[in-house]
């Protein structure tokens, strides 16, 4: 049979994750359910003359092994910490598949640019780049090359960098590689880390809020930036939590602003539903891109109201962890994975929409998840929209009841 006619299951078998909410699934889960914004912190060192509320991953990260010093950067340290959480499952998969048959697909919009900034500061002081700096720390391909070299994997290894949809896209490609048969297991996910370039860049775009982001509120003032990593082990197993649908679109509109009518967001959601073979009313919950900018929230609510005749409860995780940029699509798929994984007695808990409660009446009305809300278990949809007008929506589904 042609590889283009095949359809395969796509199990998100294991998940390792770090966000401002914690450094393990056990730490993240209760704070996620509580809608806890208290883990966000204030940083003075990122943008000159400005205090920034950010979602920083707390504490020290593991060191990249000395033999891989060419990859040593904060971004890869965070990837390493996420990988350590799924070490056993990954080792078993590599043993079963063979190291030639395990692929790595990472999303990142920063890679190690934070470490390149330090190297260039060193150059401004001394005339030479910091001697610890290697190009592999900075280049986008290094974000995936590090994982493959660390685990001695020889399957296809690459990085997708489509700004804030990168992480969702990595999962989409993982499923395609399994279906095409070029790999039997894929380590797929995304890592982005706070750095000068993105924090100053978004500040220059005047979309960063001075307060904790307040999505869908009439008082919303923009984004809270964050960092994080979510790595999945993806296989063709039929059970467990499945990546059921992928929907993608471009906007042909603007490099850094979404189409205000939400046509691109709507196209991505509709395509994800069609790919999953699901009607809109089958979706139990939507994880919003929900960045808290005036434009995103308006267009996303409008797109949801058009896509779903009766929209399910929705919420944005951005007030809890910040906008993790290139990692957001994977981190928020990770949150959806947790909701499905913790399914109990036929129902799933939802992430509460943590905002000031003062809903912008100009936005299309969509139901918002509140603290303690549970709904009958069903597939969930996660949105990730990026610069350049690059959108990717995913549908995840839990095991049948």
């Amino acid at each position, binding site marked *: 049979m*042609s*590889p*283009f*006619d095949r359809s395969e299951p796509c199990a998100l078998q294991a998940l390792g994750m770090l966000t401002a909410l914690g450094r393990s699934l056990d730490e993240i889960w209760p704070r996620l359910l509580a809608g806890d914004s208290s883990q966000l912190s204030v940083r003075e060192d990122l943008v*000159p003359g400005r205090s920034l509320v950010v979602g920083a991953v707390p504490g020290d990260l593991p060191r990249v092994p000395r033999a891989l010093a060419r990859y040593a950067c904060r971004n890869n340290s965070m990837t390493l910490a996420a990988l350590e959480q799924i070490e056993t499952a990954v080792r078993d998969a590599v043993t079963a598949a063979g190291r*030639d048959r395990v692929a790595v697909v990472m999303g990142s*919009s920063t890679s190690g*640019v934070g470490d*390149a*900034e330090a190297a*260039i500061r060193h*150059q*401004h002081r001394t005339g030479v*780049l910091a001697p610890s*700096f*290697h*190009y*592999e720390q900075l*280049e*986008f*391909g*290094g974000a995936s*090359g590090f994982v*493959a070299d660390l685990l*001695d994997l*020889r399957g*296809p*290894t*690459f990085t*997708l*960098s*489509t*700004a804030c949809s990168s992480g969702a896209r990595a999962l*989409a*490609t993982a499923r*395609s*590689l399994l*279906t*095409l*048969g*070029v790999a039997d297991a894929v380590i797929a996910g995304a890592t982005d880390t706070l750095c*000068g*370039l993105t924090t*100053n*860049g978004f500040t*220059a*775009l005047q979309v960063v809020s001075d307060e904790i982001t307040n999505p869908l509120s009439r008082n919303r003032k923009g984004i809270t930036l964050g960092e994080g990593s979510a790595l999945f082990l993806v296989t063709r197993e039929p059970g467990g939590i499945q990546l059921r649908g992928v929907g*993608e*679109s*471009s*906007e*042909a509109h603007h*490099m*850094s602003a979404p189409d205000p009518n939400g046509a*691109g967001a709507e*196209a991505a959601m509709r395509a994800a539903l069609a790919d999953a073979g699901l009607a809109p009313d089958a979706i139990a919950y939507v994880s919003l891109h929900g960045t808290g900018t005036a434009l995103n929230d308006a267009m996303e609510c409008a797109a949801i109201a058009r896509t779903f005749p009766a929209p399910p409860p929705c919420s944005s995780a951005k007030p809890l962890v910040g906008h993790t940029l290139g990692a957001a699509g994977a981190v928020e798929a990770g949150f959806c994975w947790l909701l499905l994984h913790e399914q109990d007695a036929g129902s799933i808990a939802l992430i509460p929409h943590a905002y000031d409660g003062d809903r912008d009446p100009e936005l299309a009305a969509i139901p918002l998840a509140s603290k303690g809300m549970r709904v009958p278990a069903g597939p969930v949809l996660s949105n990730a929209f990026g*610069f*350049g*007008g*690059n959108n990717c929506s995913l549908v995840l589904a839990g095991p049948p009841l």
Partner: protein
Amino acid sequence: MIPAIVRQWAAWSPGLEDADAWRAWARAPQPLAHEGCPDVQFLPALLRRRCSPLARIMLATAYEACPPDERARVRTVFASRHGNINESIPMLDRLAEEQPISPTKFSHTVHNAQAGLFSIAAENRRASSSVAAQENTFACGYLEALAHLQRDPGSSVLLVMADVPLAPTFAKLVEEPVAAYGLALLLATEGDGTAICFDTAPPETGGRVCEWPEAAEFLRWLLSGDAHLCLGAGSHRWLWLRHDAPESASA
């Protein structure tokens, strides 16, 4: 083995600016030139001003390889090892001096800036991804294009691979054939064109080291009568086979 049809191709490097020049190069290849970038008069002035040299090469080859009536309909994959890192360096210099950076420059240095520019210029609203994979960027971009064909076998996928020489700040940190070049391939699951198959291979398979980029070596193979091509470095090898070659006919 994953089949695909190369419906069209277009390539660009300084001095190699049309198909005949590339056919001549393929018969007697030499290292590619470093300096220069193509005219992109087909773009509106506003977009043209926003184009880095890399974006100019990518959009010029993309437009040439894709017929006008399909530009809004194809899925796209933009592959580049270095992307817009040269454009990021002045911003990193400004950050080192605690100076503010330009919001427009910031939003045009993301790795998918070329994808965004193409989408706007060609009014393309289809799926698009942007790939980087160190020295395996061309092969992985090709594989990502196959992944798009897997998701949507009825569409054509426009794969664009390009790079320009790294700026002096980082150039000495990377060993590679230095060149300014781009290759665009219009790929599909059916239709007229050259039928080829792709597969991964173990690192013992060999592969060749060239003084020019792998994308150019792929084009040389595509224009040749050779049955197969093995590229790759480190622990990765990539295999292409001509569909009508005797080896694959008997397989």
